[in-house]
């Protein structure tokens, strides 16, 4: 076969255009020759030849176009064929060196798999928009009191705001309620949402069946209609399509089912089961106190968040002026819903994503090192290819193809790994991470894994390919025989890789170390009460059945007596909230001070039955707790915690002093002081708290606690085993009252730590993997250095150097890059640790103890990793070393 057709593009074939011209010119010349041979003159022949040819211009143009097309296609075909050759060659090489392949693929797969798994969680929780129309137009509106936090909105404020605003096309007030659903086989607690009529417009959601409630139904007396969520409809009613019009009994009232929402409207696995009208009555609409509503709104098209905030600002100023008592120092603010929905999961997940990316980078560093080592062994092969005419670009391309094949193989293994990791992640995720259960290996996650494979291939393939492109054929061919290679430069590259790996590992470990210290600190924080041996569960007493404070108190008393009589229970009580769940606050003013806002001490309210302090193991510091004699009609009493005592009467004895505010007409006498409780768990703050006997609160205060109480009981045995007994005791009072949210107090306190624990565990795992990979990297490079210097070490030993000298010589080679890595890593960690600052309790993000401890651990591990090959080198027999080298 002709050489030129086999290598059509390589060997200086003329361009397509010239070729066409030459061919056509040849044709015309031949034709002229023929015509002249027949007797024409030269000029006649020229004309006749052209005439015969026809449209020369068009033919030339057509031929050129086809020629160009053909050339492009051939170039592409050649490129693909080379790619295939390279890929096939890479696969053969991978199979030929199974040890190398296994280590490289597994290392990378670990990095890619873990990163893909975390990414899929980030995608499910943070990146994916809410499944509603234009989710970025939905905001949540809060009242902000004294410029801090985000609080609920009062009904009066909502009604006035809704009337005054024009920035939102729809606005809704909602409140999550726990309701009792009557079932054939007993009662069940479900979480529903009561919402004003605009609710479904705000979320731009259409019902799948039936309809949603109208403004007319959002009125007292006409509000007994309910829209079911898809999940609840499926679980409770077996997705029965004839559900519309059926009656359900909620909190002892009948409701008609009018609609079912689509599955996409279930944002999370624990989302609400149903929606009913909130139906404010006239009194509630005029009530500007009791700021408990969650208000959502959809921005009108063309209105920006800033413009809406401006308007809310104006409305808030008006409300402050009109209701100085209820709205003083209150501002209105709008926050995009997505921001609130995702909350701090966003921050935590991005920290984890950053951490796995670091592990992946360390893995890349190791593979890069492996490839360098192999590149040295293959220097000769590459030099021979180069000598045979392969250009530098072609060689680099071949090496990149090899990296890519390795990367893609690792990605395939990594994706399988990610599949398992995602399941682990979902199973062990802390409560309260929204949509985590939706994490999956979908198209986005797979595309991300593919992207990782390519990026990782470039990252770990860059250095070896760059080295190869710098290689001088002559020196390599000569030196390869001697087994040396351009050592100085190569050693530097390897050392730089070690430094980078150490730096990355240090950043990871500092993060993990800070979280561990924070966890230790957290455990040392006293809760203020004794959570051990305490049972807790929740009950609700519906207004239909228990309309008056007296009826409520009677039932409460009966339940307390029933639970206290259970075997094993030393003391039982009931309370409006227990540490870990639910809270509401009230303003107190000490007697003698004017009832003005500046004198108000905003404090956390707890309404309790006698025996609460004993049941919770909450020490009474001064005075007394509550007694059965503190009842309706007897003097109003109050117990405060130490923090509130300081705020009310700094450094004075509070016993016997009187306070105004909260439930019950008239001042309350402080009869006792109890210890401070960290209500939200060890990581939470200490708030000013006050306690009042349930027997002395009025009916409106029952609404503040939403007619729901916690049953608590102390036992010498297992508090978890008390549930059936407590349930029986409650049934004895009223079988329609279900017990729910059953948990020991220890469990309640640990739930608040679970998120922190999960993050700590993950970051520690990642840090450990990073450390291990970095140690393997250091070991590999030092071992390589030691092998390279076998001859030199042999000479040194022969000349009388001690084993210790050799040991030092080899270890010293690791010291510089490890040292540089530690310094760089510490700088990086000082910057990166700010990302977890908000997750730390009693530890600063730049805690020097953690930094020093981590640096020391890392240096120690690095030393061990370097010592193994160093000891091997020192144990060399000089004669063998010299002969073999």
């Amino acid at each position, binding site marked *: 076969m*002709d050489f*030129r*057709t086999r290598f059509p593009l390589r060997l200086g074939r003329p361009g397509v255009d010239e*070729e*066409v011209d*030459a*061919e*056509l010119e*040849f*044709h015309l*010349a*031949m*034709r002229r020759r*023929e015509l002249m041979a027949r007797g024409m003159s030269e000029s006649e022949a020229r004309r006749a030849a052209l*005439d*015969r*040819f*026809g*449209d*020369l211009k*068009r*033919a030339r143009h*057509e*031929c050129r176009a*086809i*020629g160009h*097309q*053909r050339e492009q*296609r051939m170039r592409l075909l050649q490129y693909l064929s080379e790619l295939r050759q390279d890929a096939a060659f890479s696969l053969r090489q991978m199979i030929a060196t199974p040890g190398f392949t296994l280590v490289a693929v597994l290392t990378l797969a670990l990095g890619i798999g873990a990163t893909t798994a975390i990414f899929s969680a980030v995608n499910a929780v943070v990146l994916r928009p809410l499944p509603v129309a234009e989710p970025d137009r939905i905001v949540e509106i809060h009242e902000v009191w004294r410029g801090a936090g985000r609080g609920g909105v009062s009904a009066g404020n909502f009604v006035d705001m809704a009337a005054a605003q024009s920035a939102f096309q729809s606005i809704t007030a909602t409140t999550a309620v726990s309701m009792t659903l009557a079932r054939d086989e007993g009662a069940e607690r479900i979480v529903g949402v009561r919402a004003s009529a605009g609710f479904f417009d705000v979320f731009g959601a259409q019902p799948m069946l039936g309809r949603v409630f109208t403004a007319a139904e959002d009125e007292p007396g006409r509000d007994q209609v309910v829209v079911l969520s898809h999940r609840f409809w499926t679980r409770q009613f077996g997705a029965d399509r004839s559900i519309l019009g059926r009656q359900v009994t909620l909190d002892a009232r009948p409701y008609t089912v009018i609609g079912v929402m689509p599955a996409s409207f279930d944002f999370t696995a624990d989302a609400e089961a149903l929606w009913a009208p909130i139906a404010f009555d006239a009194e509630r609409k005029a009530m500007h106190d009791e700021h408990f509503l969650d208000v959502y709104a959809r921005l009108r098209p063309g209105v920006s968040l800033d413009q809406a905030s401006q308007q809310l600002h104006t409305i808030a100023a008006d409300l402050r002026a009109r209701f100085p008592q209820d709205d003083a120092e209150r501002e209105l603010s709008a926050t995009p819903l997505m921001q609130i929905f995702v909350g701090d999961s966003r921050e935590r997940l991005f920290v984890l994503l950053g951490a796995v990316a670091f592990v992946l980078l360390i893995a890349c560093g190791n593979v890069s090192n492996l490839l360098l080592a192999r590149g040295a062994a293959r220097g000769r092969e590459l030099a021979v290819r180069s000598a045979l005419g392969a250009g530098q670009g072609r060689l680099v391309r071949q090496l990149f193809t090899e990296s890519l094949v390795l990367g893609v193989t690792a990605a395939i293994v990594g994706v399988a790994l990610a599949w398992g990791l995602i399941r682990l992640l979902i199973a062990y995720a802390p409560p309260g991470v929204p949509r985590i259960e939706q994490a999956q290996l979908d198209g986005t996650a797979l595309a991300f894994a593919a992207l990782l494979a390519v990026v990782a291939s470039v990252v770990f393939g860059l250095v070896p390919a760059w080295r190869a492109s710098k290689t001088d054929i002559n020196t390599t061919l000569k030196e390869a025989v001697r087994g040396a290679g351009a050592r100085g430069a190569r050693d530097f590259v390897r050392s730089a890789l070690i430094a980078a790996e150490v730096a990355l590992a240090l950043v990871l470990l500092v993060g993990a170390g800070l979280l561990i210290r924070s966890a230790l600190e957290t455990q040392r924080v006293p809760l203020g009460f004794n959570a051990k041996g305490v049972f807790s569960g929740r009950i609700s007493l519906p207004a239909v059945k228990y309309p008056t404070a007296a009826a409520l108190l009677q039932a409460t008393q009966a339940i307390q007596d029933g639970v206290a009589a259970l075997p094993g229970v030393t003391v039982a009580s009931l309370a409006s909230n227990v540490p870990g769940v639910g809270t509401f606050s009230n303003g107190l003013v000490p007697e003698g001070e004017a009832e003005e806002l500046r004198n108000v001490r905003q404090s956390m309210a707890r309404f309790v039955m006698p025996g609460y302090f004993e049941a919770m193991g909450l020490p009474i510091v001064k005075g007394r707790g509550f007694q059965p004699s503190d009842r309706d009609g007897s003097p109003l009493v109050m117990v405060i915690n130490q923090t509130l005592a300081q705020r009310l009467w700094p450094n004075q004895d509070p016993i016997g002093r009187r306070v105004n505010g909260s439930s019950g007409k008239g001042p309350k006498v402080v009869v006792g002081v109890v210890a401070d409780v960290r209500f939200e768990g060890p990581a939470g703050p200490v708030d000013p708290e006050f306690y009042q006997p349930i027997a002395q609160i009025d009916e409106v205060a029952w609404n503040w606690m939403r007619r729901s109480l916690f049953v608590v009981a102390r036992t010498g045995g297992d508090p978890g085993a008390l549930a059936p007994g407590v349930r029986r005791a409650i049934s004895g009072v009223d079988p329609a009252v279900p017990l729910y949210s059953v948990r020991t107090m220890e469990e309640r306190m640990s739930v608040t730590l679970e998120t922190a624990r999960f993050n700590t565990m993950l970051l520690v795992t990642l840090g450990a993997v990073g450390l291990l990979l970095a140690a393997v990297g250091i070991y590999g490079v030092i071992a390589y250095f030691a092998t390279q210097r076998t001859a030199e070490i042999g000479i040194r030993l022969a000349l009388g150097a001690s084993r210790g000298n050799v040991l030092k010589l080899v270890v010293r080679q690791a010291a510089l890059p490890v040292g540089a890595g530690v310094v760089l890593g510490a700088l990086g960690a000082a910057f990166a640790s700010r990302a977890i600052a908000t997750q730390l309790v009693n530890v600063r993000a730049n805690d020097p103890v953690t930094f020093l401890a981590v640096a020391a651990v890392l240096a120690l591990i690095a030393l061990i990793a370097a010592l193994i090959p160093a000891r091997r080198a020192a144990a060399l027999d000089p004669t063998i070393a010299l002969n073999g080298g």
Partner: protein
Amino acid sequence: MGAQPNELLHGTLETLILKTVAAAPRHGYAIARWLEDITGDVLQIEDGSLYPALYRMEQRGWIAADWGTSELGRKAKFYRITAAGRKRLAASSAEWARFSAAISKVLQTV
């Protein structure tokens, strides 16, 4: 501008070219001359339409081209038939035979 080739059926020129280069590699002018000689100017193939056809056929892989030296010592592009071209030639020859047989039959019955 000469007349269009007298209504050459689609693909006929390509079949003829394949036949022309089937025996031995030829350059474009030789192909044109050969067609003129054989068909006795019945098929008035314009030189200008020959080359685009050759380029298209080369792209389709029916013929391949190499630069060589012509009988008069000039550099010329020689076309030769490929395996795919031979297959194509066989197929279109058979088709042509069927076609002309059918036409002849029709004409005879009238």
